[in-house]
Structure formats: structure tokens, C-alpha cells
């Protein structure tokens, strides 16, 4: 049967996770409790973390750190994180958002995990604590690449550089059901400009690969260009590079590929979906 342990500190939880393969962190419960309720998770230990650091947001400075236990509702309530409100609002309905955490979203399987897509476009790093030591920052892309292997340790926080201009951060989730539906796909883009030209833009997709992915081709197509019709056209041309979308209950891989450039183009051009 399942046991539950409460951990007053993050390092205590990290220590247990490192030593017990059957130990699993439960934060908001939106992923783990479903596994329990449906009988897929019947053995092991669930770890609850009561450490206040787990639910801390530090968003006022140039480097933003959000505790892994911070919920979507807490993001929405934080004015310093206004650029993340669209992806946070894209997660579930209001009741899910009071429960679902930033850390949990990093583990959500496709087509879920839209908040992670936003973090990817922000160039976020994941703070992972293995054992009782201190945490180390892992690039989110690397973290996602290793996610299925597991055993990376305890995710305690995410960090990223605050966007200079929040209006240069774009997010769009395409779902069949309004206002709450899971993704056909999602797109996040951080498009810093200097002198009217894009500088090292970062674009990420959800539901276009087994885990959220960077759109390198689009980034290359946009880098150093003004965001004009020609650049958007070039971005659309490069949109599918590296994508490996799944066929699932929501859409086929064919359909996801067909509409990705359309929605990317509309997002970049500031058009409605």
C-alpha cells in the first residue's frame, strides 16, 4: 500500500527521493492522485513538502526564481509575472489552477505541459537537487530530454532571466474546446528586439514532439531580422523543423503539422487565432 511522508525541508525530500526509487513527490496532486485513484500507483511513498521555499516566487529582480510548488493560481496572482499569465491560464480550469504546480507541469506528458513550453521559450533552467546537497541548475531542454529516464533528483525551482519587455513574450495554446481544452498544440515565443531587429529569439512548441521542444529553425529564420511579413513567411517555412507530433485523441500528426505554420504565422503577426 501507499504511504505518505511529510518533509519539512527540500533537502530531506531530496534525500529520500535519491535513496528510494519508489518515493514520489506529490505537490498539487493533479498527476499523482489520478494514478492513485485509477490504481496504477499502488505501492511506494508519496512525499509532501511543507518547506515554504517550495512555494516561493522571486520575480522582482532580473533573475526570476519560481518554486516548483508554486501553483498556476499563484502565478496568476503575481503581477510581476504578467507575461506568464496566458500560459498559466491555459492550464485546466480554476480548480486545477489552484492545485497544479510549475514543477508538476515539467512532468506532464504530451499534449499537456503547456506552461513548460512557455518556460522553454524563456530559456529557463530547472533547479534539481540530488541527495542532501544543494541544487544545481539544468537547462530545461536537457531536463526534458532526460525526463523519461527519471532519477534526476528533486525539482525545487525554475529560474530564468526576466524578459526586458513583457510584450515581447507571446504565448498561444490551440485547443478544440473553449475556454478550457487540452492542446492540439501550443506555441511560446520570446522575441527580444534591438534597433528594430530580433535578437536571439526563442520559440518553443507543445504537443509537436514527445516533450516540449525548441523551434530552432524558426529561431534561425527570425534572428537578426525585423519582424515583418518576409520574416514571418520564413519562420512559417521553417516551422516544422524537428517536429515529431503524435497522433492522439485530439488530433493526428498530419493535422498538427498542417496547422502549426498557420498558427505560428498568426501569432507572430499579432492576428487572432
Amino acid at each position, binding site marked *: *500500500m*501507499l504511504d505518505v511522508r511529510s518533509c519539512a525541508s527540500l533537502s530531506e525530500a531530496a534525500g529520500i527521493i535519491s535513496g528510494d526509487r519508489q518515493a514520489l513527490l506529490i505537490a498539487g496532486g493533479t498527476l499523482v492522485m489520478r494514478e*492513485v*485513484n*485509477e*490504481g496504477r500507483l*499502488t*505501492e511506494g511513498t508519496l512525499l509532501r513538502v511543507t518547506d515554504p521555499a517550495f512555494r516561493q516566487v522571486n520575480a522582482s529582480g532580473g533573475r526570476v526564481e519560481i518554486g516548483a510548488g508554486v501553483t498556476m493560481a499563484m502565478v496568476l496572482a503575481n503581477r510581476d509575472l504578467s507575461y506568464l499569465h496566458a500560459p498559466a491560464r491555459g492550464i485546466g480550469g480554476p480548480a486545477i489552477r489552484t492545485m497544479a504546480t510549475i514543477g508538476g507541469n515539467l512532468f506532464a506528458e504530451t499534449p499537456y505541459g503547456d506552461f513548460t513550453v512557455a518556460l522553454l521559450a524563456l530559456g529557463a533552467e530547472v533547479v534539481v537537487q540530488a541527495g542532501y546537497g544543494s541544487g544545481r541548475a539544468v537547462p530545461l531542454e536537457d531536463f526534458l530530454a532526460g525526463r523519461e529516464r527519471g532519477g534526476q533528483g528533486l525539482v525545487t525551482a525554475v529560474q530564468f532571466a526576466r524578459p526586458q519587455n513583457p510584450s515581447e513574450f507571446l504565448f498561444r495554446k490551440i485547443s478544440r474546446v473553449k475556454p478550457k481544452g487540452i492542446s492540439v498544440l501550443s506555441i511560446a515565443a520570446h522575441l527580444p528586439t534591438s534597433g528594430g531587429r530580433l535578437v536571439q529569439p526563442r520559440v518553443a512548441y507543445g504537443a509537436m514532439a514527445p516533450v516540449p521542444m525548441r523551434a530552432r529553425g524558426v529561431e534561425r529564420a527570425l534572428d537578426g531580422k525585423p519582424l515583418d511579413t518576409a520574416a514571418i513567411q520564413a519562420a512559417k517555412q521553417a516551422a516544422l523543423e524537428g517536429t515529431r507530433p503524435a497522433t492522439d485523441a485530439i488530433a493526428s500528426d498530419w493535422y498538427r503539422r498542417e496547422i502549426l505554420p498557420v498558427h505560428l504565422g498568426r501569432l507572430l503577426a499579432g492576428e487572432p487565432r
Partner: protein
Amino acid sequence: MLEMRKDLFADERDDNLNVVGKGVQRQDAPGHVTARTRFFDDHAFDGLLHLKVVRSPHHHARIRAIDVSAAERAPGVKRVLRGADVPVNKNTLLSLINFGKDDEPTLAVDKARYKGEPIVAIIADSEAEALAARKLVRIDYEPLNPVFDVEEALKPGAPVVNETYPGNYFEYHQRFDHQKLRFGDVERAFAQADHVVEHRYQMSPIEHAPTETNGTIAAPEHNDRYVVHSCAQGLFFSLGTTAKIVDLESNRLHFIGGTVGGGFGGKVDSLSEPLAVLGAMLTGRPVRYVLDREEEMLYGSPRGAERIYVKDGVMRDGRIVARYIRSYFDAGAYTRLSSYAAIKCTAHVPGPYSIPNVASDIYVAYTNRCPSTAMRGFGVTAVDFALEVQMDRLAEAVNMDPMEFRILNAYRDGDMKAHRRVAKNTALVECVQVAAEKANWPISEQARRASSLTEGGGERAQIPATPLDQRGQIGRPESRNGPATQTLPAGTTRIALSKQPVFEGARDSRPTPVQVPRYEPSPRQEAPRYDPAVAPPLPAYQPAASPPPAAPPPTAPAQPQHGAVRFSSVFGTRRR
């Protein structure tokens, strides 16, 4: 949002009623908004046990061995049930009205015929313990080839899904692999039509998705009975089904229900009642069996898919002169209610239109998917989709406005329908007119003047001469393309009119405020048989031409029957 048009048909109504017709509050509304309404699961029992089932992971597989020993030893487990523990482990839902052969086990024994089929049930102190023990059941499967497409399933050599129906089709009248409708001569009419339009339509399966999943709590009651809190859409239907499967007299079951969290047809099948009652019988304790959402979504039986081919002959002036429909109900692995839907579909053909030549062949095909069942609009929703998209195509083919095309072909009072009964109380024309008006969709003066009360009957009330055929005989797929064998003369009917309820005051088409039916005997023949021991009489009509090539099967001997009524001539063979 809702507007009443009291001017139409006003002379057929007395609107001077007290509470009928008034939008008064629902009796159940206060309970709903205060959350005091009690659904089946909202009952507390001391010592409640929880039942979960082990389901087949294969679409089609032989079950070589089942090992439940580890599950039986697991913490909290009180009892593990297998097929052998079910007293009557073969049933068909409509056996209560003697329609169809028993073909579905409560727990599969030798073979799993769809992914998700229940094989073992575990009863434990808690849901968590039942779920944990479920993982310990070991079943040795030999996967078999599945078939998923209805037309593939009907081909010779297809994997046999359900051995009760070895051709993968429901057997109608002990004679045919489908239900026929024949009215007039469609082939001749197609040959004479200005346009012939034929298309294929596919209705997807649909899940009922009620917010309350299927479930039951059954508990031993005083007086050596069992109380059953049920989500059933038909309380006595479920009681009867359960009594048969657990082999109890019906008065030892006390069913309580009536307040159900949505059904839409998905709670007709008694998916949970028999196992919950059996669990209560074998443990002596209250047993709760509730489908979880994933089970409800994938294994809670959907509206079945239907594939429908529609072929129409239409004249340049817009009159439809012939319609032929070939349709396949995807029953999944077992019959449940699909056999009945095909009959209902047959009665619905050709839709609300007067067409002088109509034929249809409706098949119920078995495939290796979750058995389908009734859903809102059962037997009609899909064919309406096909017919009304087809109507749009026909209107385009003859260059007519779609509204006016409907009005031109709409059935009117007095028209003969394809199942050889006269249409009464029709109102399609008026619905089209009002919808056109409200949508501001202009239609011609002539269409606006049309009425359901006029232009019907007369020639349109005649039953045409009708070629008959013996196509699609059971076990003889090669007979699906045979010629007509005889022609039924114009005006022929063979089925006695049922005695119809008659209402006082209805004769002058102005019903009295309170109508209570009484019965008048049928003008031509006494009411159909009610005695289950009596075999159906021969049809009143004897063909003048030579008898059909296949000899009619012998009259079934009287058998002990579970149900009270022999259900029409549709099913006549002995029940197993």
C-alpha cells in the same frame, strides 16, 4: 430563446388547462440546488466492500488460464469472482422480451471478444485494496485475429467474433442476415429517374459521457432480500436482468433508483448491478461497484457506429421517386440492443418524406470492440444525418432550394408510409415553414401555402405492388445478390394491426381536456399473441407464387422462457 406558436393547429387543442402547459418549477429542483438529491452512490453503508474488475487487454484472445491465487491472498480481499461463480453467465439484454439469443457472459470464460471485457472481479475492503489486488491476477491469453470493420466482418472467412452468431451478423426471423424493408419497385424507379444519387455515410461511435458513471451498491436486506441502489434507466429492466443472471426470484431484489446523474442510453445495460448483487450474496456484505471514468469512456458501451449507403432516384421537378438504404450497425462483440435499433431504423426509413418506392437492408454486424448500446436518438440519429445530407445533395442536383425541396417531398396526413401504415398527425411542412421564417430564409409563396393537412392520401395512400426477394439468407453469403422471387400485389398487408389505444373525444380531432386511452380491438384481427407458449401464427397472406427456395424452419417448440412476451416475429428460434 423559446417561443410558442399557439396559432398553428390551434383547433386541435384546448389550451384551457390548469397546470399542463405551464412552466412551473421542477419537483426535484430544490434537492438539486441544495445537493440533497440522493443518487445511487449517495447512501452510507457500514462495512461497505468495493468491487473492481480485471479487463482484457486484448481485442480478441483465447483465455488459456486464469490464476487468481495471489489476488485472493492480497490484503483486504474478501472474494474473487470468475465466470464460474456467476449462476447464469450468459445473457442478452432483450431476453426479457425474448428477442435474441443469450450471447454475453458477465465475466468472460473461454475467450475475450473485446478490449476491456470483464474477466475477473475482485471484492475488497477498500477501493485501494481492490485496485492493488487487481494487479496480481494472472491471465494467460492466446491473441486471436480481430475484426473491426463492419463490412469486413460480414465477409466469408472473417474471424468469428461471437460464436452465438457465427456469421458475425444478427439473425432476423430465422431467415435473413439483415432486416428488409420492401415497398414498391425501387429498381424500376431508379431506371426511370432523372438523377440517381448514391453516397456513403459514416456515423462515429459516441460515448454517452454522463457525469455520473455507471454503478451500483447492493446490500443484504432484512427478509432475506437484497436492496440495490441502481443507476438503471429502466428499473425493472435492470431488476429482471439481474434476477436472471444471479438466479434469484425477482421479489428477492429490492431496487431503488429513479434519480440518475444523466444516462442518454448508457445506463440501460445493467453493467454493474449483477456483479454487485452477486458480490453481496457471496460475501453477505454491502458491495459497491462503480465504473471509473476511464472504464466508462472506453468500456461503458457507446452508441455504435453506423455505416449507411443511400441511393436515391429523383425527378427534374424535385420529386424523389425511389430510395434504397443499406446500413450496418456496429454492435461490437455482443448484441445488447443493436438488434432492436435496426428494426427501429427500418421503421424510420425513408425519413419524413413520401416516396413511392422504398427499400432497405439493415445489418447488425459483430466486431471486436466494446458492445454498443442505445443512445439518445437510437437507430435514428445516424440515418437522419445520412438522409438529410443526402437531401441537401438531391436539392442541389435538381437545382432547388433545400427548404422547398423538403416541403415538396414532406409526408402529409393520409400518406402511406413504407412500413405500410398511414401517416397521421404530421407536421413537418409547418416546421420547415416556421424555421424558414425565423431564420429569414426566403421560400416561395407555394411553399409557404403548403400544409400537412392537404395533398396527402388519395393515390399517395396506396400500397404499391412490391417485388420480394430471398437475398441474404443465414449462412449463405452467396445469396446476397439474388433476383426477385415474386411480386406482392398492390394493397397487400400481412401484419395484423395492433389494437390501438383510443381516446375519448379524439374522434372529432378535438381531444377532451383529459384523455385516457381505452382499447378497441383491431378491425381485422384479434390482438397479437401474448401467450409465450404459443408460436407465432403464419402470416395472413399466402404467396400465390412458388414458395421461397429456403424451406421455412420448423415452428419452435415451447420453451421455458425468462421473459413474459414473445417479441414479435423478429426472433423466433429457441433460446439457449
